[in-house]
């Protein structure tokens, strides 16, 4: 057991998939030219006022219900005051003392298969800031306010995570969940899903939390793991040399794989939070909350449990297949065509299909190989038209041509030979062509059996039914 225990809490920022911003009617689409999606409200013009996007509220409630949290019947937007060029009003509108979601939890599965419950302190709504631009602007800083006012839900965990791996597992779990709920596209490259990690270490067996550092700018699962591991090592080294960890905000530099100090606690802003007088408290009644609850889809954990019991899958396979709503739906579409073969379907979806998608960086919903097509291929394995080995070749052709399994099988003449007489004819020819080997086999050289199998397969271009061939060959050679 290590002498040090790591304690981690994550603050995940998920961009809500609303069409317009949280307090203005501007579009939230990614990638528009700078400031093309910044209205007077987003620019913080004199006299303008925020109006809350009801869709963002609905999405936050959806999240809260999915993590079994308490939905606040009254939540309040506050102003977080600080000066920065990408913050047009000089304050960010966020929820502070009265968040919309409080006291939820999510389960993660550890490496040893144990299930661990991670507490979620709160989730609150807020607006994103804009961006400063430096590239191609020598001597000045450009400001792009397209992102300013984009709705975010910040999901704050309890300090329940004990390793970088757990942190990643939790973050992935949240990532899966928000996409299930269709409240966030989860796109980490575009910054739609990112996190800050509060990391501290303490002596194993003690309960008092160590001094923490807040790691910023973690926008991939890999960075989260690396940044935390680097930070834990850094803090342990400091403590072991008898020095003190300083409470500070640290930035993760993915190029160097290290964290470095941004600002210390003393330099931290006094945000002067106070309730935003331009916005009324968000008051939700039970009827509204129940109405949102009725829109909840089957959640990942529920779905995985159902897959395991309904389709007889291992917990691991059920977990993989329910990793996204699209993948789970695809799998179930395949199984619907082949109700007797849920395991075969699982193997193919997680095996050949996943590999092919992965290779070309495609999503399962891309439509490249519809579930019915894959089912058509698997059906030909089941009815012994082709062998599993041939099926992999057929799959490749289907993947590149988009043809159906039967079309490929017919066009390439891959139909398996199951006619006993036909197989016997080939066996006879092979035996006639190889009298020496036949004599050796009959003299007791058993391992030449494989030679005869290979010769028959070669002669039939691999199409002879393997089981039948074995049986017939054994009889003939005897």
């Amino acid at each position: 057991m290590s002498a040090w225990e790591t304690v981690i809490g994550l603050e995940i920022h998920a961009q809500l998939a609303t069409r317009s911003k949280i307090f203005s009617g501007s579009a939230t689409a990614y990638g528009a030219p700078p400031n093309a999606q910044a209205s007077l409200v987003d620019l913080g013009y004199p006299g303008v006022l925020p109006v809350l996007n009801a869709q963002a509220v609905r999405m936050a409630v959806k999240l809260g219900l999915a993590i079994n949290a308490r939905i606040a019947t009254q939540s309040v937007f506050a102003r977080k005051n600080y000066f920065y060029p990408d913050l047009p009003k000089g304050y960010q509108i966020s929820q502070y003392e009265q968040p919309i979601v409080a006291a939820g939890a999510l389960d993660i599965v550890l490496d040893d298969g144990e299930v661990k419950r991670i507490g979620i302190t709160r989730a609150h709504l807020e607006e994103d800031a804009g961006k400063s631009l430096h590239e191609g602007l020598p001597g000045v800083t450009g400001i792009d306010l397209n992102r300013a006012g984009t709705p975010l839900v910040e999901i704050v965990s309890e300090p329940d995570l004990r390793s970088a791996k757990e942190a990643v597992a939790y973050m992935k779990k949240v990532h899966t969940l928000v996409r299930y709920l269709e409240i966030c596209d989860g796109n980490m490259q575009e910054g739609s899903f990112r996190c800050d990690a509060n990391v501290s270490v303490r002596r194993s067996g003690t309960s008092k939390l160590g001094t923490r550092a807040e790691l910023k700018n973690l926008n991939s699962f890999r960075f989260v793991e690396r940044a935390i591991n680097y930070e834990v090592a850094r803090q342990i080294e400091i403590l072991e040399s008898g020095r003190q960890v300083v409470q500070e905000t640290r930035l993760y530099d993915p190029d160097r794989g290290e964290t470095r100090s941004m600002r210390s606690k003393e330099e931290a802003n006094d945000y002067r939070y106070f309730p935003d007088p331009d916005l009324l408290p968000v008051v939700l009644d039970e009827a509204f909350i129940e109405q949102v609850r009725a829109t909840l889809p089957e959640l990942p954990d529920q779905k995985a449990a159902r897959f395991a019991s309904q389709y007889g899958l291992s917990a691991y396979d059920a977990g993989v297949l329910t990793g996204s709503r699209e993948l789970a739906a695809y799998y179930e579409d395949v199984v619907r065509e082949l109700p007797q073969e849920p395991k075969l379907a699982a193997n193919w979806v997680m095996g050949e299909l996943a590999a092919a998608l992965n290779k070309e960086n495609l999503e399962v919903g891309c439509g490249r190989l519809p579930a019915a097509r894959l089912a058509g291929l698997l059906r030909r394995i089941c009815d012994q038209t082709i062998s599993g080995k041939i099926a992999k070749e057929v799959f490749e052709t289907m993947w590149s041509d988009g043809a159906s399994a039967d079309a490929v099988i017919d066009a390439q003449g891959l139909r398996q030979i199951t006619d006993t007489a036909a197989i016997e004819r080939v066996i006879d020819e092979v035996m006639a062509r190889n009298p020496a080997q036949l004599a050796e086999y009959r003299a007791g050289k058993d391992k030449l059996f494989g030679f005869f199998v290979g010769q028959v397969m070669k002669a039939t271009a691999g199409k002879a039914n393997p089981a039948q061939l074995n049986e017939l060959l054994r009889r003939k050679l005897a």
Partner: protein
Amino acid sequence: MSGWHTGTLTELAAGLRARKFSSVELVRAFLARIDANQATLNAFISVTREQALAEAAAADRALAAGGAGALTGVPIAHKDIFCTQGVRTTCGSRMLDNFVAPYDATVVAKLKGAGAVMLGKTNMDEFAMGSSSETSFYGPVRNPWNPQLVPGGSSGGSAAAVAARLIPGATATDTGGSIRQPAALCGITGIKPTYGRVSRYGMIAFASSLDQGGVLTASAADAALLLREMAGFDANDSTSVDTPVPDYVAALEEPLAGLKVGLLREFFDKGLDAHNEQRVREALKVYEQLGARLTEVSLPNLPLSVPVYYVVAPAECSSNLARFDGVRFGYRCENPRDLTDLYSRSRGEGFGTEVKRRIMTGTYVLSAGYYDAYYLKAQRVRQLINADFTRAFGSVDVLMGPTTPTPAFAIGAKTSDPITMYLNDIYTIGANLAGLPAVSIPCGFVQGLPVGLQIVGPHFSEARVLSAAHAFQRVTDWHTRVPPGYA
């Protein structure tokens, strides 16, 4: 032709509809008065001559075609705190000296929609922070009753312009008394509606939970007409209230007999000038004669209004004014060295002393370690004051008392002592803290200077307070008095 300027807004609107005169004639006449008195009163920051004449000509065409609205062709002015598309909106500050709004405030759009013709933007205390209209970057406004005196503030430009009959009516805003106090000091009628009655969209924010747009006019009838056209729910303002706007004009003749009037004991305190008190008491007698029943009521927490206000308003202002940073609009300092220099010099050079004082105060009361002691405590006291009003309106229909402790004071008399200046709003702030509608009407003179009577009603009782004001104006003529030289 002359003499139009002494007509009330109601009369001018009727005259236009009856085609007794044209909007162009009217606008020309008022523009001439504005020009003639600008040097003396400094009531305007911008005069929109060409635009006004073009709009007047269009109004005349609409009147001829029979497609006229309630205010078609009527000249008005907007306090320079309301954003006007294509016309400079300065808020009385160097910070916005170069600011041309790309949109109309809802109030501006509504009045435009009703046919009103804007003649210009009126002078005001910088960012509406002040009670004397002396803090404007464009110089102090002067009181038409005596140019050595202040007109009150912050809507002093609108008040002086209406009092001097440079315009028949003007918009204004009231955060702690900025409509009612200048109305009292200039001898005109002003109404601050219920918080949420008039949209704040496009009204440059000072203290968002207190700011409310309203009007300054010669009479309660004029105020009813103007307010009816500019009030109403606005989806762009989350704090505006979605409740129908009554026809304030139609409600003016509501009988007064039996009206239960509460006299605010806390308003008749030792700070109230004896002569002022006398005028107010005389006005209350008139109400008694009209059939009102007067009783004394007490709002024990009301004396805490000023300290509460001077925590809440600066706190909100410190945050609201953060957007003036020299980055996207407004004043920007020359050759900033770096970001901090850009911020500190743009703001340091762009804002005046009073605005800075309030930003500093507000920043302080919201700071870690002080928030609970100041801001939170002030909000709690505000709740107590609200409760006092609610209790009072359980037994009376309206509350009456003085609008201000004294008549107009001399320019420069209080600028060096912010506290005495702040105390000028002692009787008006309560209605802002509680979000209540309140009017000030002229009720007599002290040494040639007008005195105001304040009428405060429950939420959304604009029709009631206006009809009560109108009843008084039917039997008195204080509201028809025009400062010497402006008749």
